[in-house]
């Protein structure tokens, strides 16, 4: 019977069990790497480096995981912090050049041929809306959990999800349900 996250974390805590931690990495690597790929606009190498850094930080700080949130939520938070630090280093964090980004992201300017591509549409969203959409709609986190991951108020998460979804709907209007 496969062990759940809590059992695996307990093994890492008590026995410093590398096999248990490897199991945790295996269980969550796809979601964490997927999230980071979206956040880094599909820079696969950078996303994987950040994911590796996130898992190493998780291992080093596993004693600070108190189990108040799900392990995945705690992990996303670490991964998002890794991304933010990297973005700060590269001065690419949204807000630094918001006007340029807004111009890039105007749905009217999107090539209609690319409208079918949901992933591409996601890349066009501002970082805060994209992250909220990825966490809540794609990774299935509740608004409350996403607020913990992003360390922002619950209301802001809800607003970002709502705005992001509206923009996606506009961008993908021609590809809606038939």
């Amino acid at each position: 019977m496969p062990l759940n996250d809590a059992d695996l974390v307990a093994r890492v805590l008590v026995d410093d069990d590398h096999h248990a931690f490897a199991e945790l990495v295996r269980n969550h690597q796809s979601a964490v790497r997927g999230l980071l790929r979206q956040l880094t606009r599909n820079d696969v190498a950078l996303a994987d480096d950040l994911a590796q850094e996130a898992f190493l930080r998780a291992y080093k700080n596993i004693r600070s995981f108190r189990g108040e949130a799900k392990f995945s939520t705690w992990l996303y938070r670490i991964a998002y912090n890794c991304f933010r630090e990297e973005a700060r280093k590269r001065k690419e964090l949204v807000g630094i050049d918001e006007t340029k980004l807004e111009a890039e992201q105007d749905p009217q300017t999107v090539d209609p041929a690319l409208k079918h591509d949901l992933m591409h549409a996601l890349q066009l969203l501002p970082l805060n809306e994209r992250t909220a959409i990825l966490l809540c709609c794609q990774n299935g986190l509740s608004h409350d959990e996403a607020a913990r991951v992003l360390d922002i108020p619950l209301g802001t998460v809800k607003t970002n999800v709502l705005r992001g979804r509206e923009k996606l709907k506009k961008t993908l209007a021609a590809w809606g349900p038939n």
Partner: protein
Amino acid sequence: MDEQLQEDWLERRLREEMPYIDDAGFTARVVQKLPAPVSRQSWRAVILISVTLLASVVTYLASDGGRFLVVAAYRFASMPLVFISLVAICATLVATAVAASAAVAQTRETR
């Protein structure tokens, strides 16, 4: 209605479009970079045994060759059987309660 349909479609697409990323050696690379496990268990055992031995020697020397143990054992043996049984039961209950509370605390911590 159309609005709701479109919203449901979008939610569904978002979930379906999340591709599974094959591990392709990622886990192995992470595990390779983990710091080597510290053998705390063996150190803990060495420290505990050393301290216990040292304390035993000190107590033995300070108590006139452990004479107090002989006296205490004699006194205990001369007590009524009912009293000895009660002491044994109480000691067992206390030990069980301490162990159970420690187990519960450990479980909460790791959740």
